C-alpha cells in the first residue's frame, strides 16, 4: 500500500473512531453546559445502550438470517431504539435519584456520587445481566450480534478499504448532528436548554421548568450514547461491562478539546481526537501507547487552550 493510501486509510479509521467519541462527548457537554456537572457515569450509559441493543436482539429471537436490506432498514433501527430506551431510562433514573438531590450541595458531592453511580452501574450489569433467562453471562465480553450488510462488510474507494461499520458510525454522527442542531435551535425545549445554560435563575423566572430541561439534557446525551454503543458493538464485534470506562474518558477528553459546554465543539473535538489517535498510532509507532496520546492531548489543551478549540461557555467556575 502506498503512502497516500495508508494516510487516507488511517484518516477514515480516525474519523469513524472520532465519530464514536463525538457521539458520547455530546452527552458530557450538554449536561456540563447546563448543570456544570461532569457526569462520570456517562460512559456507563453508553455501555448500557449497547447492552440494551443486545437485549432487543435477544427478544427479537436472535435473527441472523435476515437479508441485508431488511437488517439495515428494520433490525438495526429496532436495536438502536431498544438501546436508546435502556440508556435514557437509566440516565433519567440516575438524574432523579442521585444527582438532583445534590443540586445545591458543594461541588465535590455530585462528583463523588457520579463515581459511585459509575461503579454501581458497571457492577450491576456484570452481576445481573446473566440472570435474565436465556441471556449470556456478562462477566466476560459478549459477542455483539452481527447485522448482515454491515458487520464484516467493506467497500472499496480507490485504494482505501472502508468498513461498513465505519460508514454507519459516520452516518449516525451526521444524522445526530443535524438532529441536534434542529433540536437545540428550533424547538422549545432546545431553546429552553440554551437559556438555562446561560442563566438558570433567570430562565426559571421566565417560566422555564429547569428540572425538565435538565432531564431533557440527560436524555439527549443518553440517546446519542446508546447509538454510540451500537456503533461500538458493530465496530469491535463484542461488548463488555467495562467498555464505558475508557470510552467515557476519551469522550470527555474530546469534549474538553472542543470546549466543554459547546455542542459543535464536542463533535469537532471527537473527530480531531479520533484522527490524532489513529495517525499517532501509525506514524509515531508503538500501538501499545495509543491510549496515552489522548490523555497527553488533554493535558496539553488544558495548559495552552483551556477554553478548547471552539471555545467553552464556562471555563473557570470555582
Amino acid at each position: 500500500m502506498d503512502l497516500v493510501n495508508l494516510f487516507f486509510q488511517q484518516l477514515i479509521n480516525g474519523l469513524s473512531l472520532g465519530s464514536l467519541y463525538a457521539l458520547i462527548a455530546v452527552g458530557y457537554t450538554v449536561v456540563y453546559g447546563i448543570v456544570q456537572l461532569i457526569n462520570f457515569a456517562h460512559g456507563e450509559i453508553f455501555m448500557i445502550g449497547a447492552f440494551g441493543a443486545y437485549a432487543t436482539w435477544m427478544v427479537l429471537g436472535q435473527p441472523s438470517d435476515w437479508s441485508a436490506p431488511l437488517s439495515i432498514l428494520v433490525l438495526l433501527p429496532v436495536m438502536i431504539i431498544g438501546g436508546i430506551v435502556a440508556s435514557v431510562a437509566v440516565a433519567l433514573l440516575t438524574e432523579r435519584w442521585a444527582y438532583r438531590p445534590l443540586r445545591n450541595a458543594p461541588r465535590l458531592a455530585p462528583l463523588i456520587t457520579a463515581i459511585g453511580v459509575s461503579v454501581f452501574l458497571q457492577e450491576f450489569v456484570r452481576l445481573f445481566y446473566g440472570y435474565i433467562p436465556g441471556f449470556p453471562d456478562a462477566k466476560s465480553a459478549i459477542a455483539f450480534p452481527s447485522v448482515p450488510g454491515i458487520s464484516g462488510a467493506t467497500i472499496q474507494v480507490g485504494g482505501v478499504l472502508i468498513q461498513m461499520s465505519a460508514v454507519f458510525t459516520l452516518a449516525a454522527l451526521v444524522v445526530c448532528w443535524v438532529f441536534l442542531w434542529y433540536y437545540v435551535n428550533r424547538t422549545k425545549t432546545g431553546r429552553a436548554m440554551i437559556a438555562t445554560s446561560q442563566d438558570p435563575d433567570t430562565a426559571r423566572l421566565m417560566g422555564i421548568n429547569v428540572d425538565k430541561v435538565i432531564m431533557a439534557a440527560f436524555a439527549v446525551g443518553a440517546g446519542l450514547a446508546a447509538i454510540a454503543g451500537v456503533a461500538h458493538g458493530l465496530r469491535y464485534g463484542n461488548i463488555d461491562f467495562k467498555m464505558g470506562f475508557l470510552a467515557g474518558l476519551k469522550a470527555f477528553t474530546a469534549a474538553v478539546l472542543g470546549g466543554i459546554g459547546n455542542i459543535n465543539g464536542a463533535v469537532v473535538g471527537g473527530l480531531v481526537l479520533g484522527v490524532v489517535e489513529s495517525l499517532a498510532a501509525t506514524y509515531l509507532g508503538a500501538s501499545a501507547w495509543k491510549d496515552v496520546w489522548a490523555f497527553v492531548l488533554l493535558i496539553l489543551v488544558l495548559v495552552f487552550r483551556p477554553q478548547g478549540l471552539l471555545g467553552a461557555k464556562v471555563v473557570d467556575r470555582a
Partner: protein
Amino acid sequence: MRVVIPNELKIRYRYPARALGIAGAVLMVVSILLPWAYAPTALDDMTYYGAPSPLQLFFAILPVLVILLLAIPLVGKARLGKAAKIVAWNTSAKTASIMSLIVAAVAVTAIAIDLGGLINVELGGWLALLGGVIAVAATPFLPDSPEPTLYRVKSPKWLQILGIVILMALLLFGAAYILGFEDADDFLMFAAFVVGVVMVLRQFGVFGWLGIAAAANNRVLVLSAFVVAFAFPFTQNGSDANMSVASQVLIFAATALGLNIVVGLVGLLDLGYIAFLGAGAFTAAILSESAFSTIKWSPPFIVTVLIAGTVSSLLGLLIGAPTLRVSGDYLAIVTLAFGEIFRITMNNLDGNDGPNLTNGSNGIPGIPDLNLFGFDFGKAHVILGIDIGRFANYYWLMLVVIALIIVVFTNLNHSRIGRGWVAIREDELAAEAMGVNTFTLKLLAFAGGAFLAGVAGSVKAHYDVSVTPDQYVFLESAFLLAAVVLGGMGTVMGVLIGATILKLLPEKLRFFADYRLLLFGLLMVVMMRFRPEGIVPDERRQLEFHDADEELAEEVEEDLTSHHAHLNPEVGGFVL
C-alpha cells in the same frame, strides 16, 4: 419515613409504654436461657436450656440496658436530681430497643439461613424477636428527652483519664475479639451488637462527655491509642492471618490519610491517587535487591523512601501544575487520566514498547523483606513468650508511619497553610481575594499528598513481595476515596475508621466478595445523599453540607470557640 406520634398521646401513655418496654426487654433477657437454634452449627452453640452462649450473653447486654434506662427514671425526678436532665434516658432506651431487635433479627436470620429454614429457630429465638418488637413498638410513646448535656458536667481529671483508658481497653478487646471470628454470621451478629452499644452510648451522651475529656487530655488520648494499637499483635498469639489483615488495613489507612489531605482539607478531587502509591512502590521495587529489578543499585531503605516520595511528588507537580490553574472538575478527570497513563506506561516499559524498567505486566517479583538498621522485617521473633511474625513487624512500621502522618496532618491543619487550604476548599474566589496564594497552596497539597503516597508505596512494595501494574488500577483509587468519604472528609479518626471498615468487612464477609464493588458504588451514592459529612464529621465540613441549618451553625460556632478558647488568652477585654 419517620413516624410522628402526637405529644398528647405520649403524655397519656407514658407509663403503660414504659411498662410495656420493660416487659419486652425482660422477655429478651429471659430468651437467652432458652435455646435459639435447633442445631449447634448455627452461630455459636445456642441449643442449651439455661446455659447461654457467649453471643447470647452479649446480646442480653442490650435489653438489660433497655431495662435500666426505662426503670431508673421511675424513682422520680426528685431523687434523680441532676441526672434527670444531663443524660437522655428515653431516646437512648428507644435506640437500645431498636438495636436489640436488629441484633435478634440478625441472629434469627443467620440461624434460618445456616440450618435451612425458619423451622430451625427455637422458642428462645422467637421470644427474643417478640420481646424486641414489643419494646420497639412501646418506646416511641415515651416523651423525647432533651439533648443530653453530660458533656457540660465538670469531672475531675482522674475520671476523664479513666474514661479514656476504659474506652481504649474496650477498643483493644473488641478489635481482638472481632478479628477472632472465623464465621461470617458470628461476625455480623457481634458487629451489630457493637454498633448497637456505640449508638446507645452516643444517645446517652457518653460520647459527648468523652469528646470533652479527650480534648482536655489530648496527650493521654493519643498516647493510649498508640499503646493500644502497639499492643494489638500481642493479643493474637502469633496468628499470622489476623496480623496480615491488620497490616493491610494500616497500609490502606496510611494511603487514605494522604488522600485525605488532598480531598478532605483542600477539596481537590484526586482520582489517580493510586498512581502515586504505585510510583512509590515501583521506585522501591526497582531500587530493591530483587533479582528482577532493572537497576542494580540498591541504596539503604531510608534513601529509597526519600527517592520514592520525591518521584511521586514530582509526578504530582507534573500533573498538578497545568490542571490546578483551571477549575477543580478538570483536576478530577485529568488525575483519572493520569492514573490510566501510569498503568499503561508501567505495562509498556518492558523492553519491547519502551526501555525496560518494570518488566511490563510481569512486574517485579521477589522483593526481599525490609531491612532497617540491621533489623530484618522478614524474621519472626518472640517477645514475652508470644510469637511476633513478619506481618506484625510491618504492622508496627506502618503504625510509626501513620503516627508521623497524623502529627503532620494535625499541625498543618492548625497552621497558616492549613487555614489557607480550608479557605480554598470553602470558597476559592473569596480565599484568593483575602490574599491566599491559591495556586501555590493547591500545588503544595497535591505534591505533599503524592509524597505521602510514595512513602506508603515503598513500604507496600516490600510487604507485597511483588509489584505489578494491575495492582494499581482506578478501582483502587475509588476504594481510597470511599474510605475518605465514608469516614468523614478532613478528619483523621474518620478516615481510620473508614479504612478499617472497608478493608475488614470484605475480609470477614467472604460470601459477599462478588458484590463488594456494587455495594461500594451504592454506598458512595447513599452517603453523599444522606450523610455527606461521613461517620465522623468535621465540624466545619458538616456545616458546609448543611448550610441551611441555622441551629447547627450556632452549635458549631459555639463548639469552635470553646475548643479554641486557649488560642485567645483572655487579656483585658480583647477576646475575639
